[in-house]
């Protein structure tokens, strides 16, 4: 009986303590930089698509919400012809970001994606592509990869030695 009265008194005292509610639309909560929210496609420092359309994100996605198709430009660079994410399926697990070898696909701290029409939850490449580099600056996949594209032959990338000619006897 005493304990019941005590608990009533403690609950009553909460009248004078601060409320914990964050008044959301007026007052925004802090989202940590690693928050997994809306998915974006980033560009490399030169402003080209980082995405090389390797399909790893689509494979890693547990709910199959990523669809893309690879194509190649005149320079020999692979890029996605279309890149489509169905955000009504996406569970924001971040596996696509982990799978991505080129830092192209990234999850950013933004969750305000409500729509009145379900169809609008499907984001195409032009909606996903941002003009910046996202969370990882200064990385350009083609500068490091051994792959030859127009304007950069084999072994001409950064931290790369020219390829060894196996038919030559010279050291």
């Amino acid at each position, binding site marked *: 009986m005493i304990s*019941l009265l005590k*608990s*009533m008194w*403690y*609950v*009553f005292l*909460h*009248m004078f*303590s*601060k*409320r*914990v*509610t964050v*008044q959301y639309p007026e007052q925004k909560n802090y989202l940590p930089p690693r928050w997994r929210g809306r998915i974006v496609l980033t560009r490399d420092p030169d402003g080209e698509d980082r995405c090389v359309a390797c399909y790893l994100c689509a494979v890693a996605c547990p709910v199959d919400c990523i669809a893309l198709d690879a194509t190649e430009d005149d320079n020999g660079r692979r890029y996605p012809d279309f890149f489509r994410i169905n955000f009504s399926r996406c569970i924001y697990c971040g596996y696509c970001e982990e799978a991505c070898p080129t830092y192209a696909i990234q999850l950013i701290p933004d969750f305000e994606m409500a729509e009145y029409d379900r169809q609008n939850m499907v984001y195409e490449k032009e909606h996903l592509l941002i003009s910046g580099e996202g969370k990882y600056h200064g990385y350009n996949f083609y500068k490091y990869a051994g792959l030859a594209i127009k304007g950069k032959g084999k072994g001409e990338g950064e931290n790369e030695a020219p390829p060894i000619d196996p038919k030559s006897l010279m050291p």
Partner: protein
Amino acid sequence: MNETFQHILIVFGILFGVLTLAAALIWIERRLLGLWQDRYGPNRVGPLGIFIVVADMIKIFFKEDWIPPFADKKVFVIAPTVIMFAVMMSWAVVPVAPGVVVFDVNIGILFFLAMSSLGVYSTVLAGWASNNKYSLLGGMRMSAQMFSYEVFMGLSLMGVVIMAGSFNLTEIVNAQKNMWFVVPQFLGFIIFFIAGLAESHRLPFDMPEAESELIAGFHSEYSGMKFGMFFVGEYVGVTMISAFIVTLFFGGWLGPVLPPFVWFFIKVMFFICLFILLRAAMPRPRYDQLLSYGWKILLPLALLNVLVTGGLVLAFE
């Protein structure tokens, strides 16, 4: 003619007042619960969110009023009206101010006890007619609960009746001019308060609803305004029990300076807030715990209270 008009005015005044208070309780309860749980509660519609009442009313009136095909249709429809009827009828004998009472009957307390017992039928019938296991369990718990509290509820009031020498509520209030009955009848007050909580099946004793175990129990099949009637019935029940506590133990409209009606309102609001505080603070006991608590502790206490009060009143006469 003038007297008839005045009477009609009182009837509609009390009806309007009670229903308005019950509607306002939608807001008051949620705001107070929020206050005591360190959050806000409804605060979007209108100043301090008061128009949530209007929004809720509009919503509940336009909801689909669905009767499940497996339900016992007639009983299903009648059940929610019973609780409204019972609690509103109880309000008829409450003296709000001197002379302001719908039905100044000389068996006021008995009428109140009869009507509050009728209210139990609503819950039991709803649980039965829903033809659903959870609802049936809720109705069964309500009847078990009724067996536990109804006996000592009536007995706890007998001390007041002995002291006032009347079943008439106006006379009981007038008998408290010198001292509120809560002082000599403190035990009776505590027992009646617990019984009143069980009667209005509010949170410490809301076993028939028990959202966590019975998914709203007896009214889980109800929707639309039928559900709304259970809700309004519950809120009117809370105001009704508060009004009776105030009338029987806290001197009704009696009080200095302020007009009688205001005193009555303040006291009733205090007890309504206490009911809500109890909801915020208390866990729910098992219903067999309430049963054994009622029969083994509160009933003997109530009997003892009647015995001692009766003996003392006889000794001092």
